[in-house]
């Protein structure tokens, strides 16, 4: 479990952008919302890289830019400056359609509020990204995932017939079904009780350890962040630190420093 070397290193140049083990990297990212005197600088030059098969948490106080960073890394939003590369593809060179297709094949999402389609069954929700792309469903992989998330007896249930934890497990399986280069989690445990939270986090951990999945998760819960290989701290739109193999204490220390 601890055998994964983790680097979350600020990179200086783009020359070796795709050379290393980094699956996702952001270079000199800035993001400004609004214009003129009311403009807000959400990101003020962030350089990050996430290696294949690592689990990273992004933390920071409200308004630190962590959600903005994740949205930009995931190709949901475009930076004002700098660029993002996912699995060797520069996102700033893609038009909206190609960006969509890249998201479809290379990016998985787990949202805070599950975001399942109520009209589809659990299994149909899991395979949705494949079917949107018109791709064939790999039955073996689907069965593996459903078994892994423990929904074998809930395949045909609709979201309204599932608990919050079960719904989020569906969302995890959905994020993994395309074997994406990276899965982003946006406060994936934010709506769950502590038991369900634990289950989901362990599920994500296993995805990294057993399947070699890369996961980047935004959270404000230090307990959740301890399951990650490392934590990137943001403050005022900048990376304020990186913590490898975090513990509750180190995280809380960092946060205290960050907000001080």
């Amino acid at each position, binding site marked *: 479990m601890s055998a994964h070397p983790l680097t979350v290193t600020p990179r200086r140049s783009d020359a070796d952008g795709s050379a290393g083990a980094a699956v996702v990297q952001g270079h000199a990212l800035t993001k400004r919302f609004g214009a003129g005197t009311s403009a807000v600088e959400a990101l003020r030059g962030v350089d990050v890289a996430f290696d294949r098969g690592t689990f990273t948490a992004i933390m920071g106080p409200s308004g630190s830019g962590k959600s903005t960073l994740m949205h930009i890394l995931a190709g949901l939003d475009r930076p004002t400056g700098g660029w993002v590369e996912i699995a060797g593809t520069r996102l700033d060179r893609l038009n909206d359609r190609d960006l969509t297709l890249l*998201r479809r094949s290379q990016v998985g999402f787990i949202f805070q509020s599950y975001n399942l*389609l109520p009209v589809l069954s659990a299994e149909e929700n899991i395979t949705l990204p494949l*079917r949107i792309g018109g791709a064939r469903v790999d039955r073996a992989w689907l069965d593996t995932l459903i078994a892994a998330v423990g929904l074998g007896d809930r395949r045909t249930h609709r979201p309204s017939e599932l608990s919050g934890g079960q719904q989020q497990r569906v969302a995890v399986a959905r994020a993994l079904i395309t074997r994406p280069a990276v899965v982003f989690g946006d406060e994936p445990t934010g709506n769950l009780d502590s038991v369900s939270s634990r289950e989901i986090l362990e599920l994500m951990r296993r995805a990294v350890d057993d399947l070699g999945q890369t996961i980047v998760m935004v959270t404000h819960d230090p307990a959740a962040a301890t399951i990650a290989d490392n934590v990137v701290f943001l403050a005022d739109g900048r990376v304020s630190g990186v913590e490898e193999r975090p513990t509750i204490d180190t995280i809380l220390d960092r946060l205290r420093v960050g907000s001080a």
Partner: protein
Amino acid sequence: MIAIALRSMGQRRLRTALTAVAILLGVAMIAGTYVQTDQIRAAFDDILQTANAGVDANIAPRTEFTSTFVSTQTIDARMVRRAARVPGVDRAAGEVFQMGSLVVDGRTVAPNFAPAMVIGMVGEPFNPLKLVAGRLPSASGEIVVNRKLADDEHLTVGRRVGVTSRTGIHPARLVGIVDFGNVASMGGATMIVAPTSDVQAWNRLQGKVTSIVASAAPGVTPERMVRNLRAALPRSLEIKTGQQATADASKQINDSIGAFLKPVLLAFSGAALLVGAFIIFNTFSITVAQRRREFALLRSIGATRGQVLAGVGAEAVLLGVVASIAGLLGGLAFSKLLGALFDAAGMGIPRGAMELAPRTIVIGLAVGVGVTLAAALLPAVRATRVPPVAAMREEVAPEPAGTSRRRAAAVALVGILGVALLVQGLFGSGAASGRLAAMGAGSLLVFVVVAMTARHAVRPLAALVGWPLERLGRTTGELARENSTRNPARTAITAAALMVGIALVAFVAVLADGMKTSFTGAIDQRASADLVVTSDNGMPLPGAARDRIQYLPGVSTATAQYLDQVKVNGKGVHALTDQVNGVDALALRDVYRFRWIRGSDIELQRLGPGAAIVEEQFAKQHGISVGRRFRLTGPTGHTATFTAIAEYRDPQLLQGVMVDLAQFRALSPARDPMAYFVRFLHGSDANAGRQRVQAALRAFPAAKVRTRAEYSHWLTKQLDQLVYLLYALLAMSVVISMFGIANSLFLSIHERTRELGMLRAVGATAGQVRRMVRYESVITSLIGGVLGIVVGVLLAWLTTFAVKDLGVGFIVPVPQLVALLALAVVVGAVGAIAPARRAARLNILDAVHSE
């Protein structure tokens, strides 16, 4: 509460606007109907007032009733002098009014439905003409025409033209161009004014006039002069003051508009309003469901149920008022549209200035606000049922279905009532207007019941119509179908809105096809004439024409059909059955095959004084069987008694009762037949024969010569024109339902913002999202299309069943119905354009995080 209502409408501007459109268009149709009919009436009043300017007394032949068939009753011209000598009369003049068209360069200028009039010139003070150019006719062979006719035909003073008449075409010279007083529009009517003696001579009316006008001497009131005239002139003349004559004629025109045009237009407006009501109901239902937490919050901070109700009610009233005011203005546009529609259909109806009469405003507002409020009532009551605790709960509860047993009972009750009304309308006895009203109300209730129960059919129907889309769009299609069945009640009402329009179109299509087939079938089976000669506008043909064709080489028989309305046994005239045919019975046998119920061709020889052959419907209507005696009264009041000697069946071509020509002339003042039927000699060249007949009738351009097949085709085309007019009026309902589809899609998209965001995040392209919305829309509209076709065909089937005596068959016009489904697809696709665009444009980030 009202402030909240205002603000919440302001916030949902698009939704408010779309909902408003639903009611706006319905109100516009109602208002437009009134505006248009007011315009028509104003124009006729204008014409009547001009015609009667300077007329203190009007003297006309007394009538028992007014026949729909044009027949000239005349007065001996010597009466004019007698009238002039009556004390109190200053001047009197004889008027001659006939039908006749202008012939320019050998081409006859014939308006389609509007009258082509030839009028004898009268002197002052009765002359209503105002010269625009040239002078008034003073010598034989001189005429003037109305300005529009001159403009349309590019005529200038001095031009040589012709005038058609009962005796053929007469050459004339145009000496002037006139306006009819200050009348703004005579519609498509054309007017030729010639010296009275010419009009008399051309139409074999020497020594006769059609009416007499008189002016009072100074100091004599019109009323006193009329009393004097009544005392001095025979009882066979009806004498009125000019004012009374104008008022009577105006009332008659108003009645005839009120008898057909207005109710038909209002019925179509009603359909449009029903569609609007469905849409308003749906919109309010959805928004009330979406605003559950808002209502709960209001309740939890102390608002009473009544206040919540008042809040939603206020929104409905406000919406109704604003939409109705806009609808009233739209009514002016709709009136213009109607006018253009009538003109396009060739009905040149005169039209005065547009005006929103106070009555129109009151009706428009009352109907618009009333319908909006009624449609919003149920959702508003639902809003009051939201418990305050719902404010604290996360989930948005589904729209409550209401206690299902009570609901089922209500649906059943409405359904039974609807069917009862339909049956009463279709099979009941009583006045046609009452039965039509019952049918209309019954259909309305049937529509409501289908809308209320359609929710149960949404799932299977969506599976049915969604299947091709799923093949086409795969996941997108599948999601679209799932989405459309997510809230069956909502989909059902949205589809029901379209159903109404589609059902009425299908109804018209099926009936029209049945009627066409019935007519063409009747012509095939009953008629054996080689040629049918009629006018295109239902006017009689010159009686002189028969002499010209009867003795042509190759012609074996040429016989005429005279037609007029009659009263039977003193009862009111029934439009469908109460007409008398004047025929030459033996000649008729050559051009027509009787289908006898009682009797045979032998009886035709006995058709003489006191004998009549009755058609089945006529016999049924009056309870007359063969051997029974009955009394017929013509429009002039002439009465004769007949015995039914035989009974036949032909509800299409020769309705009513048949008597021989001498008996007909005793009953009716009509001197000209409605049609000629020509049979060629066996083995003669039909083509050559037809050309000879055509050449012989060249002097009577109104007489159109057609072979049996051509006549059949022409009838079909006439019916088609009417059908297209009905379709055009129904288009409004379909357009309104399109707004309804757009509206409910917008509302659904609003609800599903987060889902759409997720779809985009996991890789659905904007195009896929657009397609999904479009497919969902098409599935909904196809459900409406299928329901509409089923309901429309069923209603048509019921109707043909009810009138099967009239020979209208039940034929399902498959191509038209398929075209209707295509129309439904188009409606769905167009209705989805804006919502689909919005769904695809959603900002993914906002969508994913939206509450």
